[in-house]
């Protein structure tokens, strides 16, 4: 029986169709996968189902009744719940408080034989309710832990509990496995099967086709806002889905020859580097590595294993507590960002709009940021406006940055084009060593190809590159050597030429034979 049906759902943003005339249905108690590329419109569709967006045209039916959600509360009332890719949890509250949030259990007292509800919370009763849920679904959680102390996998379970507490029958998961280790993914799939056994209907949005094949009952493929095909999983293959999704072979077309000479001189050396967070946790724990001329060193790992902090330390945004960093033999430990760029170190930061670009400033100013001290752009404390605009035009041309108004603000650029500004800025200044953190995150396929080609070209020019990425395929196709980071340390180093995805996956989960 159909539990959800989309009838001609269309959603426009300005002139852009994020969803166009979508017909799509989900059967009761099935696991439905919705697949598509970045920007294909999957998330928009799910946000429509969950009441976060209203459709421009068309409508949604739940159990045959036409519904009109204006907020997530409406969706939850119609027993649809969603687990977002970026969890909506309050880190400073406990598991119990997060699960009960918005539907708290209040204390009652007996007054003359009648029970009167107090405006106060009842911890005891709330705890009992949460515990009962945890046991029913076989989760391994303590209701009194603070959410900020939980692992990513456990946080996801809290999100699921939150929805189950509201007794939803339909659960939507947005990219649920993106931040999980392979082990956690197995665990998550077990939870999904458990949920299905209890009669829930599940929709997962993903672009990982292997997982689709493993877990789902049926698949709907979306491309450029339109449904390409809906099919039973048993009747299709990974290859077919890939072709439907992209319209061509999905294998990344840019691949390194992985042939760095082991005898090239060392450019960048890190020795025994450590740092601690504010609460004293040692998140980077004595890491050492060196990068040679003409080499791309990849650092792989599941998010949250210390890579972010490592990048921050290496790019001068965080102090190290121990260890040294050397550039061509010179000690640059704890240099400030300016000192790093003065020593010809280019930095592509992890968080594009936090550390890389300033949305409110002009394109030209973003193009020189970090290099604004150079005499080329600034003399005697005054900025050289003309030279800066020249430079901007050069970057726009050389890096194929698509923009409607060169004099405008950065905020008018798409993610891919914004990222190209950073790449252009850092590479056109001709660095000897490049730190590239998540260089293609949230960027469309065309730009990914361009960025990969650019990084490989740098390698050919005998420059050194440190590539930090959570995308396995990116690490594998570009790197010469790969270090796997786990809980703040490097668990192993592997040669990119003869390592398999499976082996890397195990290492990322902390398993080493």
């Amino acid at each position, binding site marked *: 029986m159909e539990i959800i049906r989309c009838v001609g759902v269309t959603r426009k943003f300005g002139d852009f169709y994020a969803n166009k005339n979508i017909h799509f249905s989900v059967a009761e108690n099935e696991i439905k996968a919705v697949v598509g590329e970045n920007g294909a419109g999957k998330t928009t569709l799910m946000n429509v189902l969950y009441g976060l967006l209203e459709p421009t045209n068309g409508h949604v039916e739940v159990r045959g009744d036409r519904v009109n959600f204006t*907020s*997530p*509360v409406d969706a*939850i009332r119609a027993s649809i719940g*969603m687990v*977002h890719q970026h969890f*909506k*949890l*309050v*880190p*400073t*509250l406990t598991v119990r*408080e*997060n699960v009960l*949030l*918005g*539907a*708290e259990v*209040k204390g009652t007292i007996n007054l003359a034989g009648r029970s009167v509800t107090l*405006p*106060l*919370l009842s911890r005891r009763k709330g705890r009992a309710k949460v515990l009962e849920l945890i046991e029913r679904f076989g989760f391994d959680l303590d209701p009194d832990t603070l959410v900020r102390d939980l692992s990513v996998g456990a946080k996801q379970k809290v999100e699921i509990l*939150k929805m189950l507490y509201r007794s939803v029958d339909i659960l939507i998961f947005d990219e649920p496995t993106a931040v999980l280790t392979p082990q956690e993914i197995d665990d998550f799939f077990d939870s999904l099967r458990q949920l299905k056994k209890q009669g829930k209907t599940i929709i997962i949005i993903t672009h990982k086709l292997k997982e689709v094949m493993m877990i789902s009952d049926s698949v709907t493929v979306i491309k450029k806002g339109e449904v390409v095909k809906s099919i039973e999983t048993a009747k299709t293959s990974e290859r077919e889905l890939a072709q439907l999704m992209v319209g061509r072979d999905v294998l990344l077309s840019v691949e390194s020859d992985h042939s760095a000479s082991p005898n090239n001189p060392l450019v960048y050396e890190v020795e025994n580097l450590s*740092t*601690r*967070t*504010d609460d*004293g946790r040692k998140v980077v724990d004595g890491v050492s590595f060196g990068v040679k001329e003409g080499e791309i060193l990849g650092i792989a790992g599941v998010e949250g294993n210390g890579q972010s902090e490592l990048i*921050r330390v290496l790019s*001068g*945004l*965080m*102090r*190290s*507590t121990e260890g040294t960093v050397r550039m061509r033999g010179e000690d640059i430990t704890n240099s*400030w960002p300016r000192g790093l760029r003065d020593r010809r170190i280019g930095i592509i930061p992890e968080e594009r709009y936090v550390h890389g670009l300033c949305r409110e400033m002009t394109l030209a100013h973003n193009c020189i940021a970090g290099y604004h001290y150079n005499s080329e752009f600034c003399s005697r404390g005054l900025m050289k406006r003309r030279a800066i605009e020249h430079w901007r035009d050069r970057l726009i041309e050389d890096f194929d940055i698509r923009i409607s108004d060169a004099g405008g603000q950065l905020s008018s650029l798409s993610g891919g084009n914004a990222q190209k500004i950073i790449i252009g800025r850092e590479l056109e200044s001709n660095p000897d060593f490049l730190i590239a953190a998540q260089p293609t995150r949230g960027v469309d396929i065309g730009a990914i190809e361009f960025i990969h080609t650019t990084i490989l070209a740098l390698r050919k020019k005998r420059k050194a590159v440190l590539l930090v990425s959570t995308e396995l395929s990116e690490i594998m196709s570009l790197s010469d050597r790969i270090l796997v980071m786990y809980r703040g340390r490097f668990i192993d180093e592997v040669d990119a030429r003869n390592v398999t995805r499976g082996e890397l996956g195990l290492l990322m989960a902390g398993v080493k034979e």
Partner: protein
Amino acid sequence: MNIIRFLSDVLLYTSPILFCTVGGLFAYRANIVNIGLEGMMYFGGLASVLAIFFTQSLFLGIIVGMVISAAIGVLFSYFSVNKNANFIITGLGINLLATAAGKYILVEMGLTEINLINIDRVVDLGVDLPLIGRLPFLGGILSGHTPFTYLSLLAVFAAWAVLYRTPVGVYVRVCGDNEDAGVSLGIPTAKIKYFAVILGAVFCGFAGYNVTVEQLASFTPSFTDGIGFIAIAAIYCGDGKPLKSSLYAFLFGAAKSLAINLAVTYGSIAILLKMIPYLAIVVVLFAVEGVKHSRTNIRGISHV
């Protein structure tokens, strides 16, 4: 210096700071820095005094003070929640408006201060506590204060209970720590913020009543004396936690009491002693925030 007098004055001078601290920390926990505490207190005090001056009724004084300070709270939250205003500037605007309104009203009335001394009930508002009042030493410190001074102590525990033991309190903290999480579950975060600011404004109004009616029995144009900002310092030092912040409020109240009690002994430089509380707060802020800062390895400085 009389030690009993000193300790009793600690309570006296702490209570308005305490009200403002409690008032400010609700907004602070909901991620709104309310710089307008001082102005809200000022409006509360002014309204109470005017009401009592014209009606001779203490009860009406309290009610009018609450209503006016709550109205300022509504104004502040309308600006910062609905209109997305820069709440630092809104707060400063409220502070300036308060003093300007006070001075304008005084000039219109042809007075330099509004005196309530002639209203007999205002002069003697002290409450002699039963039992405790008869204790040696402690009795002299704790007994004989005005009702709102005692109320300020209760306010701390009330704030704690609301923040940690009621759903609304949880929602206030959700607004501060991850508003998105609240929105996704249908918690009306805008209303919660209104609640946090308006409740805080009423507490500030109590502080105004406490100082003007109970302590001075008059309205003078500079009666707030930076109390709102002292409270903000206490909130910063105490991370917006009711009990911890209140502890700092007591520390600052003690500095003020010390300055005033020392001044009795030292004639000519008495005026200089008035600097002590302000300087003490700067030193305490430096110590507390400096320690927090030294613990982090992350570089960079953020706004506010």
